[in-house]
């Protein structure tokens, strides 16, 4: 997995690429998200367009990020959720937990100004 990010209108947009299956990749993603939170950057979009697939470790990181951000009065939004990941969210009933948007622009705009 590769990881890149950008900031737009006070929102961090994180772009993982590849597979999120656990091991060092998952640690990298978790550490990067924690680093944003430590810096007080609590409005985060994860762009999943380039994620081939993820497992329960990836879902655990999304949940951990969501709950940590909410405690810090922030929010996590998902963008470009692929069909495969959407199916995983449906099977695990996590569709009810996450806010997801068709594009990064829509996800960024959804944060209060």
């Amino acid at each position, binding site marked *: 997995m590769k990881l890149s990010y950008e900031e737009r209108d006070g929102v961090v947009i994180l772009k993982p690429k590849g597979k999120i299956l656990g091991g060092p*990749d998952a640690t990298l993603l978790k550490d990067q998200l924690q680093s944003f939170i430590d810096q007080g950057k609590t409005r985060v979009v994860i762009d999943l367009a380039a994620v081939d697939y993820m497992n329960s470790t990836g879902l655990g990181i999304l949940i951990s990020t969501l709950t940590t951000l909410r405690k810090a009065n922030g929010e996590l939004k998902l963008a470009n959720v692929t069909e495969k990941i959407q199916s995983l969210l449906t099977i695990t009933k996590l569709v009810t937990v996450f806010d997801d948007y068709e594009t990064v622009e829509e996800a960024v705009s959804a944060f209060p100004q």
Partner: protein
Amino acid sequence: MSLKPGRELRSFPSVPDTVADVDSFLDQRLRDAGFPDELMADVAVSVSEVVNNAVIHGNGANPEKHVDVEVEIAPDRISIAIQDEGAGFDPDTLPDPVAQENLLREVGRGLFIVRAYMDEVHFQMVDGRGLRITLVKIVSDGQPG
């Protein structure tokens, strides 16, 4: 369609990189056998769940302990057996990960996902060795296509 039959066993240490190494091994082996792309994610995710559990819970992330992965390919199905050196667990006593009170738990979904993605999941304690979990995915009726 029909897969090219074969069997291969590999042993991996209980280290963090093993999940990616098993994924690469399996990806190559299944592609060589003609396994369909559209089913690859189901298998890769399921195997990663079982391998993560074997490394972390079964073997306690002890690099001296190994996870054996055996891939068996028949014309109409693949079977992947993952064996650790642990004491095993009762899969029927795990909390329901889709119960409302468990939805925000960070862990506990792996086996649930495996059961959703694979056609068969078998558990076997191997005397003096550890827990062996076998995952089966059926691809077709085995007729040449």
